């Protein structure tokens, strides 16, 4: 599988400036997936055995709203990486993941990749660097979202 997927995997931004050997290791754990719009791709609390590199389409991270129904928290699109729970114990999804539109993505097997990280600390460090950047970006975006930017007074409060 790796031999056929590797050339298209390389086109995804996640692999930018990544060494060939690292890409080869990841491609051994990759498969192509496709979801129709509305499909529940992952469920909160279930084992996070994979993460996704979106090629085309939109995935939404969702949670049940305390007021009933579903709250859509963040969306991810072409070129984005979705899911870091495969790397952090207890390896469970922290949210539901739903296809908003038809989605084409690479699914990367988290258990397969974790084993490779354990066996090859250099590779593990490379993964940690990439995913800590992803987590930091998400955290910063979440902080801005929490600030309720657009609805507070436009003016800073001046004592």
């Amino acid at each position, binding site marked *: 599988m790796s031999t056929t997927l590797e050339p298209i995997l390389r086109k995804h931004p996640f692999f930018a400036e990544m060494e060939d050997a690292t890409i080869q290791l990841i491609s051994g754990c990759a498969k192509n997936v496709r979801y129709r719009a509305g499909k529940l791709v992952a469920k909160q609390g279930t084992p996070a055995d994979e993460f996704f590199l979106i090629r085309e389409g939109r995935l939404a991270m*969702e949670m049940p709203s305390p007021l009933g129904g579903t709250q859509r928290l963040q*969306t991810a699109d072409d070129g984005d990486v979705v899911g870091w729970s495969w790397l952090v114990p207890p390896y469970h999804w922290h949210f539901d993941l*739903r296809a908003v539109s038809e989605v084409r993505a690479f699914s990367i097997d988290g258990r397969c990749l974790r084993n490779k990280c354990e066996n090859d600390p250099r590779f593990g460090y490379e993964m940690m660097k990439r995913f800590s950047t992803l987590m930091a970006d998400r955290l910063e975006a979440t902080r*801005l979202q929490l600030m309720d930017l*657009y609805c507070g007074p436009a*003016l800073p409060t001046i004592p």
Partner: protein
Amino acid sequence: MSTCFDDPDPEAPKAVSMLPEPYVVVSRNQETADTFTIALRPADGGVMRSFAPGQFNMLYAFGTGESAISISGSPEDGGVLVHTIRRVGAVTSALDRLAPGSVVGLRGPFGSPWPMQQVRGRDLVFVAGGIGLAPLRPAILQVFSHRADYGRIVILAGARSPADVIFHDELHSWMQEPDTEVQLTVDRADADWHHHVGVVTTLIPRARFDPANAVAMVCGPEIMMRFTAVEMARIGLPEARIFVTLERNMKCAVGLCGHCQFGPEFICRDGPVFRHDRIRHWFSHREV
């Protein structure tokens, strides 16, 4: 074509009057629960002053007070002056209560405009947060009525929730325009919302435009504008091609009273549209 721009157009029409003129509300449209749009015409049926995109008027709700409000209509619509207003306090609430036929006082136009002449031939990226789409709308309308003069158009608009998106139908109609990308995002949504969820700055790296040729015009809360500039820098769009519009409490609007002072600038006279590199330093001072 130079890669750097002068400050916004010094030739834009500017009023100097301290005396409000009576204008009649000819129509009123409720945009969202707290935001409405009113169209105004001179009460005496006289000729309306021209304005440039980005400029603002001082609207006087008689008996309550005056507020600076950007013009949100097309500069080429000579019939009415359009303003989109979010109800936040005494004056904006009084303006909210005006039915068609009511009269308001109006002074203006004031301030620096978006640099529409200087950006011809460029890709244009409009980044709006909440009510910030209102001051950008005249620039967007001008671009669409002179489409061949500009490159690719990208409009990135953020709002709190789907119910808070202003100019909703118009945004969707702009999505159909050629060589135009419109992306909407909200902070929270339910499963019926099919656009983005997340802060508006996350749309910047996904948008398709040429940073080497693009100019950004940004309007929203200051923190959003700061993060927008950071994201633009990451993708290679230099600060000298980012224009922002600032808001500060305003009284005279003609550079006399100092209410709207921002560092060395008076926002009413030197702004509200500034090149980002000119005011970046003051952005980081909370006390300013």
